[in-house]
């Protein structure tokens, strides 16, 4: 395939955001009637690339050709006019309108102001029949399952004469049979000459449905192979690729007798069902783990693996369907964050701005928020004592703020994170759960956070560290537990941990786990 025979051709596309080079000279092409898989770790640049294609971002440089003609995509509307449609993981439908109204929204047939419902229904039915989708045009979208809503999105794209259809993790919320139905539809699209870009973490599915795979890593191309000529192992190698030289290795936090150290926290058979989209979805399935004193335990997994959900359940922020939490050898009744805090657990949440901080309020107020009980007498906050402890933490962690009264929103990401960490350290926690503690933080502040974590572990605080960056986990953690689709799929010690082993466990799917266990037993 060359520049002029490919339906879509992207060459040397670069895009940077303040402080981050998101894409560097990335090339991608897909032909009419081809299904292209696009894979890469979290943050590899898949979303940025797709947002450029769908007109959300403008590239800094590079060339895009559609049907051999150079194009510029000005905005999402323009992308659709060009025949490029994207179906996001979070579907973009209006729940209180019918299927047909959603498909033709903004382009309703009929006179201006008056929609011809019969024509609308006829045109909708024509598309649904052609794609063999069993949907009623007049059904309310709200009443449909996730899989059916996805069909509506696809029908919407078809009604716009789609030439390139991008699907971002379309199978993540679907059941086995629904996935098969979706694949049938995708194949029909291919056979009718549509170019499909299929983004997924599920390598088995990519190998199953796609004709070719493009791999991204750290915002650059890392491979482009025909599915027939590759394997799961090769794809994993391409995804992780980089050598581990940028991180220092250090000694284990545990004593020589690591195994006999006290277990501080134990989660036994934690399950959680139901998400906002799908009340039957399995979020966590019988997850167990044990955390030792002074240990940094890593939780690895791809998007949707259940890492954050597990952290929230342990902290009492979300309810669990079943399972027990034991603290220091005793069952702990943790139903809410209040209970978790009483048991000496702190949570540094993934969404720092949305859940960790009150952005409008001062550094001082944020820092002491969880600790006001100790700082107050007769409900009056002891201003002097509060001041001293806040100043102490600002100095100790070198938090760069002009004053404790500065609103947190004005601090840099790294300093904001130190404020969140300070909030918990004031409570002398036994256990700190840190969800993506270095996300969105510049390199210098990152290493400060790493230092801090080592220091806390050496003081005997146990840390559960969640991160999407495998190298970070490998460098920091004494032990790493891998999750995939809400299940524990593997556990590795610091000696065993490599990018390949982690990626292997994190992309295991249920049947694979079962069959591996089966073969192990046999």
């Amino acid at each position: 395939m060359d520049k002029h025979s490919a339906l879509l051709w992207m060459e040397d596309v670069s895009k940077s955001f303040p402080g981050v080079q998101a894409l560097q000279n990335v090339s991608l092409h897909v032909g009419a009637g081809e299904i292209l898989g696009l894979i890469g770790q979290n943050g590899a640049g898949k979303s940025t690339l797709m947002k450029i294609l769908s007109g959300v971002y403008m590239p800094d440089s590079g060339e895009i050709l559609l049907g051999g003609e150079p194009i510029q995509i000005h905005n999402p509307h323009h992308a659709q006019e060009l025949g490029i449609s994207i179906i996001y993981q979070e579907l973009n439908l209006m729940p209180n309108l019918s299927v047909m109204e959603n498909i033709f929204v903004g382009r309703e047939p009929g006179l201006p102001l008056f929609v011809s419902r019969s024509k609308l229904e006829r045109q909708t039915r024509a598309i649904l029949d052609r794609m063999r989708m069993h949907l009623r045009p007049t059904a309310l979208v709200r009443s449909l399952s996730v899989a059916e809503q996805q069909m509506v999105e696809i029908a919407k794209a078809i009604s716009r004469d789609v030439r390139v259809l991008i699907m971002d993790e379309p199978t993540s919320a679907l059941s086995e049979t629904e996935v098969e139905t979706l694949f049938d539809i995708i194949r029909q699209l291919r056979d009718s000459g549509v170019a499909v870009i299929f983004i997924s973490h599920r390598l088995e599915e990519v190998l199953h449905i796609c004709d070719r795979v493009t791999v991204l890593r750290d915002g650059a191309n890392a491979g482009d192979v025909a599915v027939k000529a590759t394997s799961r192992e090769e794809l994993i190698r391409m995804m992780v690729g980089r050598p581990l030289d940028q991180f220092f290795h250090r000694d284990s936090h545990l004593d020589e007798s690591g195994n006999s150290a006290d277990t501080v926290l134990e989660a036994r058979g934690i399950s959680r069902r139901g998400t906002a989209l799908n009340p039957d979805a399995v979020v966590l399935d019988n997850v167990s783990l044990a955390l030792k004193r002074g240990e940094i335990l890593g939780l690895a997994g791809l998007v949707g693996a259940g890492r954050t959900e597990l952290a929230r359940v342990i902290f009492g922020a979300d309810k669990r369907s079943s399972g027990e939490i034991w603290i220091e050898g005793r069952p702990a009744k943790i139903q809410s964050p209040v209970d978790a805090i009483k048991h000496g657990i702190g949570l540094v949440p993934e969404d720092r701005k949305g859940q960790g901080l009150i952005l409008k309020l001062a550094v001082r107020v944020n820092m002491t928020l969880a600790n006001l009980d100790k700082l107050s007498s007769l409900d009056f906050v002891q201003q002097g004592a509060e001041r001293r402890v806040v100043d102490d933490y600002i100095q100790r962690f070198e938090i760069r703020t002009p004053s404790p009264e500065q609103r947190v929103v004005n601090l840099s990401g790294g300093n904001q994170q130190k404020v969140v960490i300070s909030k918990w350290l004031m409570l002398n926690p036994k256990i700190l759960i840190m969800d993506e503690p270095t996300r969105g933080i510049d390199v210098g502040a990152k290493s400060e956070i790493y230092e801090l974590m080592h220091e806390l572990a050496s003081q005997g605080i146990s840390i559960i560290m969640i991160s999407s960056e495998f190298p970070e986990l490998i460098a920091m953690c004494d032990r790493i537990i891998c999750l995939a689709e809400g299940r524990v799929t593997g556990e590795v010690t610091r000696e065993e941990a490599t990018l390949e082993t982690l990626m292997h466990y994190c992309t295991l799917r249920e049947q694979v786990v079962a069959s591996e266990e089966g073969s192990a037993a046999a």
Partner: protein
Amino acid sequence: MTSQSISKSTTRKGGTDWSAYASQFGALGVLIIICIIFAVIEPAFVSPINLFNVLRQVSIYGLLALGMTFVILTGGIDLSVGSLLALSGLVAAAVYKGGTGLLSAGTAGQAAGFGLWPAIGAAILVGILGGLLQGSVVSWLKVPPFIVTLGGLTAFRGLALLFSSGQPISTFTDEYKFWGQGMIGPVPVPVIIFLSFAVLAFIILRYTRYGRHVYAVGGNPEAARLSGLKVNNVVLSVYVITGFFAGLSGFLLSSRLNSAEQVAGVGYELTVIAGVVIGGTSLFGGEGGIFGTVIGILLIGVLSNGLTLMNVSPYIQQILVGLIIVFAVFLDQLIKRRR
């Protein structure tokens, strides 16, 4: 971080943080400008008698606005205060007189009922119960506060009508009227009550753990919950506080007017919300405070007083008040954007 914010905060290190008040300064500026204009055009405006008159006129609004500030700081709203005020006023009067209706208790100057303190207590109790009910629905059943208190607005008014059979309860003894009409030295009693509670509310919001929790819940309820705050209890409590002030104000208004009426307090909620918002408290919660609320309420009082002194038609007054509400909030946002 801008260099501007650095210099501003470092100069005040260790002391009160005036930047926290910045959102409340917009209204203060407008208030000062308007006072100067009135003073120049109509010197009678600045006489102590007139100034106390303004304060007396705003004291009922002011008390309600103190409670409303707590609610709005959590990101909520309470539309029921006017109706709850009417109901509490009638209850106070009925307890004092020993029954409802014009004929229930003898003539003026005779207290056939249960005495003054039970009357005040009953009014406040009714207010607190009303707030407890609405706050429970908001915090535990998660019905939006706008809807819950819109229901309260209608239901409490209906309850007031039902309770009094549509009749006002009027003519009280001097001990009852003292609270709304009396003076201590040159200062009207309701003004003293208003300012005392304003100081108390200011201290609670600024210096107590509870006050912190109110700001935190309004600023980011999820972060507050994850920091171990009992968010539902805080939300419940602020409706109890508005209920308390509605109850107290109900008694004071009946005392001031020498009559408890079913139509008392109609539309007060909007004036009170306007005052709180003019004072720089964000309807999204987490920002603002009592200082601004007092200024905002004074601004509304000063405007209507000054314009009346200048013989401006009440029709035009309404137009001007409307424009100034929008202008004050615009000015406030302008200041915030600069920061």
